[in-house]
């Protein structure tokens, strides 16, 4: 019942947005606000006759690679910084530097230093995302419940059993939050990276349509990718969240 209600509310929100869009279509120039059916037919064209499928795959590939790299290294570094004071002292200035470095600067520098290559694109996204994962994980590692760790120590649990059953599960909510925020941030950065220096992907497509002032195609491309991200949230993060919450609340 609750799930149905949640679905109903979400449909209501989407429906309201569509109505607002249609009102804007009536009020403004159709070149700026194309009708929904025009956007739909543009999507149909790009999906079946254009490059949308390939662009989507390329962007997703970049998102997935940089996401996995940032999460893996970010989680380990964050735990280290949260638990070992000396590590925190060493890495903190670097962390602050990269947290405050504008994404665009990183992207441009990566392209200049490495060249307009795939490695540069993924590295730029990775560098932009990594500090936020580290910060989230460091906070999580700082509030580890030492009373539970004492249980593991008293009963002399092996290190791996302690890590995977007692330590790491305490960080799952932080990992999930970092992953969710991370994915939302990464795909936006990937679009900028593609716009600036790649010849495929959603970002490149948007750049091309911008040149032709083709708003219907821009929206068709953007909606396609947003739908993919919604699906990831719905089918990956929500079930994971449900699983993580088991036993943590009534």
């Amino acid at each position, binding site marked *: 019942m609750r799930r149905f209600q949640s679905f109903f509310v979400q449909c209501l929100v989407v429906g309201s947005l569509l109505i607002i869009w249609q009102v804007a279509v009536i009020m403004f120039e159709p070149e700026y606000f194309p009708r929904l059916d025009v956007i739909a037919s543009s999507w149909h064209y790009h999906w079946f006759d254009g490059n949308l499928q390939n662009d989507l795959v390329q962007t997703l590939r970049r998102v997935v690679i940089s996401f996995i790299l940032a999460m893996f290294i970010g989680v380990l570094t964050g735990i280290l910084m949260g638990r070992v004071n000396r590590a925190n002292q060493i890495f903190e200035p670097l962390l602050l530097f990269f947290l405050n470095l504008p994404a665009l600067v990183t992207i441009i520098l990566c392209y200049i230093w490495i060249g307009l290559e795939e490695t540069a694109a993924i590295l730029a996204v990775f560098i932009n995302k990594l500090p936020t994962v580290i910060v989230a994980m460091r906070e999580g590692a700082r509030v580890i419940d030492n*009373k*539970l760790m*004492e*249980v593991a*120590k*008293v*009963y002399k*649990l092996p290190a791996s*059993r302690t890590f995977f*059953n*007692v330590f790491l*599960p305490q960080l*799952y909510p932080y990992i999930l939050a970092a992953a969710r925020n991370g994915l939302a941030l990464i795909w936006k950065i990937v679009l900028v990276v593609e716009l600036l220096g790649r010849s495929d992907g959603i970002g490149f497509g948007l750049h091309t349509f911008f040149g032709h002032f083709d708003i219907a195609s821009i929206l068709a491309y953007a909606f396609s990718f947003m739908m993919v991200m919604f699906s990831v949230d719905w089918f990956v993060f929500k079930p994971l969240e449900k699983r*993580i919450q*088991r*036993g*943590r*609340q*009534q």
Partner: protein
Amino acid sequence: MRNVDFHLHGINLDNQLIVDSCSFSVRENRTSALIGPSGCGKTTMLNVIAGLIDVEHFTPPPDLKLAYIFQEARLIPWLSIEQNLALIEPNLSSSDIKQLLEDVKLHDVASVYPVQLSGGMQRRVSIARAFVNKPNLVLLDEAFSSLDAPTARYLMNLVRGLLDKNQASALLVTHNLQEALALADDLYFLSSKPTKVIKHITNPIPQSDRKQDHLEIDVIHEQEKALLSDYPEILSGIV
């Protein structure tokens, strides 16, 4: 387990002398109690013995197989009851788990999560967990203090039964003399910080009487009164 003698002295934490000099014994298959006022360092001593606090002057006896029943249940929230027990010993069969839970009078709770149990039931699971790895010394840190009297007595009976069944010794720290009289064979009275043992007596209530399922509360009260009149200077700060 043979008799074990503990000698704790000169324990400093954060540049403060916590334990001056404490020597006490836990006899084979018997229970000793460290009784002292709140904040005197009882839990610190237990944590030193358990290896939770590293100190220079103490090395635990090598053949000790410890279990620890904390003040709170300290169950792992994201593991089911069954998984909490199997965490200590992964080779436990489901019948072992069932037996452990039956020993603490719990039924049909193996698959639920700690949050789904009452506080008292969680304590019982933590008692069951303490006996998973067949310990020879069980440490009890004010394990019954925050409970109402009938629940505390019920859990004490459970622990006593399990200690007998597993032929384990126990070291109990408490500020509650009645609790010590109901469970322990040897009573060690501690001073305030820096802690010293100021008196050692053998429990005047015979072990056979304490093993009765329903040890009369009057007997404990009587003995408590007698001890208070015998050692007023020692017990005034404790009870």
